[in-house]
């Protein structure tokens, strides 16, 4: 079995490791550094710079220096704020691309440049070719983000044997020397760009994740941006970042800092002053956002804070005292700081690589899928097929049948997320099922949804008659038409009220869809017994329902339905009378 390396591909920093005589070891680059800043700089000519030398160029040449690209991996334009120093391109709804000079790169390509550097470092340190890897991702990454991360590895010449969740990896690092124990632990992982909370049960070498939650757009970067925004010194914003970040780091141990800025502006020397209390005022609203996710994860695991034996902190941002005190408050105990928050994830990735290669024995990881997987139902609701926090790998079958006689195909939309309204969830993609010609309800195709151990979806369709199975290509959601995506973006602006009104509309529409044909049918049967005035009233009420439907206004539609209902009271009475007369 050939060597497999473990890689933590972080928003801010990346690391690589390998098993050595039963222990995970992180590998240093030619300069003796284990931490590689996840930054790529493209000089005027020559090869891109990666890591420390690239990070130094960030303030000097921001337009050609790409950082925090992990925020954009597997993302579409419009989903992520483009508040970075380098230009992003791409039409709304298409995958985000990064423009450097006159070239465009995908986030996968940028990531692959970082991965190549790590791969070369490891090959040099171990004096062997590296071709297989385990790469970590935030636990709350969706299918598209996982697939894109895997693609980045492949672009870097690596066979990606597994995508592992970062907090789970950290738990492996924590638990490797406690394999005889039983314990419940929480892993609180606040990095540069993402936040995850995972609850695990450790039982004699079995690491079972009970629940996970998080936010892939919450991290230390947000605190940095807020500090930049709050800094009133007469310095351009892009120059502020270096000193506000330095101040933030120092305030983890100091109460107040003064940073002289000798080159900030001509002839004038400035000093940046920040106290821990000021930092906390700026950071608190951001840090507070982790609270909800922690409570959700505990509730999903059906546990109380008191049930946890240990809280592990991961991610550089957990060095902040404010973060630690919030963790202690929400999870009910002082966090365990025995793990190096920058290295635990990479060590865990390395251990998982060791499990796969056989170098680590008697350890197995039972991870979960962070998001519910479902399909869009008739009426635009989400029908969950695999609930969140299900142990992976997992398979679930669903039977589809033709809704009308002779129907030849059916379009299935696959979604990930926790919202009731289908379109509020992340569309993973769609596929078409072919039916053979048959009477309604007789053509049947079974579809198997499988989430593999990396959290990636595979779909298999099986004809129940022939038993023939075929892998279904789920066409990626990023291929959907611009028009559809623009509509989605527009709607997401009204997000605040959408869930409620979206539901109101869906329900009202179902009612209208039932009512309108019924009214038409009833008019056909007994309409002639109505007065001209009654007929006109019904026609007007029906027209108003049609208009409200077309306008997509939920409350108007609800009112219109009610009015139509009222206007057709006499129709209903006539129908009943007619039925009674026929019976008698």
């Amino acid at each position, binding site marked *: *079995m050939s060597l497999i390396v473990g890689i933590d591909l972080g928003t801010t920093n990346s690391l690589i490791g390998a098993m050595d005589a039963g222990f995970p070891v992180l590998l240093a680059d030619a300069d003796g550094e284990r931490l590689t800043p996840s930054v790529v700089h493209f000089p005027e000519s020559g090869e891109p710079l990666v890591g420390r030398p690239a990070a130094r160029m960030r303030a000097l040449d921001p337009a050609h220096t790409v950082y925090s690209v992990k925020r954009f991996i597997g993302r579409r334009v419009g989903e992520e704020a483009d508040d970075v120093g380098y230009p992003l391109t791409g039409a709304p709804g298409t995958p985000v691309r990064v423009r450097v000079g006159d070239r465009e790169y995908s986030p996968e390509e940028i990531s692959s440049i970082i991965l190549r550097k790590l791969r070369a470092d490891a090959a040099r340190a171990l004096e062997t070719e590296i071709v297989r890897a385990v790469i970590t991702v935030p636990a709350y990454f969706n299918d598209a983000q996982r697939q894109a991360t895997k693609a980045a590895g492949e672009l870097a010449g690596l066979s990606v044997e597994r995508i592992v969740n970062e907090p789970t990896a950290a738990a492996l690092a924590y638990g490797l020397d406690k394999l005889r124990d039983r314990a419940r632990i929480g892993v609180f992982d606040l990095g540069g760009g993402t936040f995850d909370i995972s609850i695990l049960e450790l*039982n*004699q*070498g*079995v690491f*079972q994740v009970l629940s996970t939650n998080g936010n892939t757009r919450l991290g230390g970067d947000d605190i940095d941006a807020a500090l930049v925004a709050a800094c009133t010194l007469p310095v351009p914003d892009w120059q502020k970042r270096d000193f506000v970040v330095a101040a933030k780091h120092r305030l983890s141990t100091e109460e107040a800092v003064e940073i002289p800025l000798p080159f900030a502006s001509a002839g004038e020397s400035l000093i940046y002053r920040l106290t821990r209390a000021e930092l906390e005022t700026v950071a608190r609203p951001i840090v507070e956002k982790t609270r909800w996710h922690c*409570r*959700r994860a505990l*509730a999903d695991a059906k546990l109380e804070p008191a049930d946890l034996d240990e809280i592990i902190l991961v991610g550089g941002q957990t060095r902040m005292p404010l973060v630690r005190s919030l963790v202690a408050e929400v999870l009910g105990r002082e966090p365990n700081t025995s793990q190096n928050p920058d290295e635990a994830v990479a060590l865990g990735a390395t251990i998982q690589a060791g*499990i*796969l290669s*056989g170098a680590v024995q*008697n350890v*197995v*990881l*039972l991870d979960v899928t962070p998001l519910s997987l479902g399909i869009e139902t008739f009426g635009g609701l989400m029908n969950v097929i695999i609930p969140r926090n*299900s*142990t992976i*790998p*997992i*398979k679930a079958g669903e039977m589809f049948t033709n809704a009308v006689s002779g129907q030849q195909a059916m379009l299935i939309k696959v979604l990930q997320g926790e919202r009731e309204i289908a379109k509020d969830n992340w569309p993973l993609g769609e596929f078409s099922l072919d039916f053979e010609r048959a009477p309604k309800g007789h053509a049947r195709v079974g579809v198997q949804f499988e989430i593999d*151990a990396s959290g990636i979806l595979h779909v298999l369709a099986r004809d129940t008659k022939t038993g023939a199975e075929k892998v279904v290509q789920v066409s990626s959601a990023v291929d959907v038409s611009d028009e559809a995506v623009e509509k989605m973006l527009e709607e997401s602006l009204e997000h605040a009220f959408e869930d*409620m009104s979206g539901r109101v509309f869906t329900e009202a529409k179902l009612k209208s869809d039932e009512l309108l044909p019924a009214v038409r049918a009833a008019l056909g049967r007994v309409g002639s017994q109505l007065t001209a005035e009654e007929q006109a009233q019904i026609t007007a009420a029906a027209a108003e329902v049609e208009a409200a439907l077309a306008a997509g206004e939920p409350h108007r539609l609800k009112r219109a339905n009610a009015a139509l209902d009222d206007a057709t009271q006499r129709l209903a009475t006539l129908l009943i009378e007619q039925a009674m007369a026929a019976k008698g």
Partner: protein
Amino acid sequence: MPDHFAALDQPRRPWLDADALKECFHRASASLHPDVPGTGDAARFAEASAAYSALRDPVGRLRHLLELEAPEMLGRASEIPPDFTDLFMRLAELRQSLNAFQKKEGAATQGLARALLIGERQLMLARVMALKSDLDSSYEASMVALQALDAEWEPRAADSIERLAAVQQRFAYLSKWRTQLGESLFKLQ
């Protein structure tokens, strides 16, 4: 129809010890998980994993036991057990007022408007907690009934299946209501 009891080497009966069952799943995973070199077996791991999630909670376990032993009992129309009517009415009423309250709270964007609602929120919370405690007691009582049924499972009495169906039904209602109330509580806190 898979036999989840067999998949985890468990006796086919109403009561299973939760810790012992978990232990059994973990030991099975330690050898069957596809990552384990040599003994890993994706198909058998999938069976064990599906079995564990079906058997771990009484409601799923009893439903599966009925599926295996008396599938005809499952399709029967069921009414709320008479002694649950009161719980049901209270829950329905509470959820309705919670919805109304949350709508009101959602509309209150100003600090002052929200502050005016705090008293009502406390009242809501107290009502949820009180009902939760009653639901929990009913759940505990059903667990006792389940253990009693299990004690007389073999040799099986003539009415065992009827009793199983009745207990299953109680668990089905209680689990659903506890989940609903848990969600309400989560939103309130």
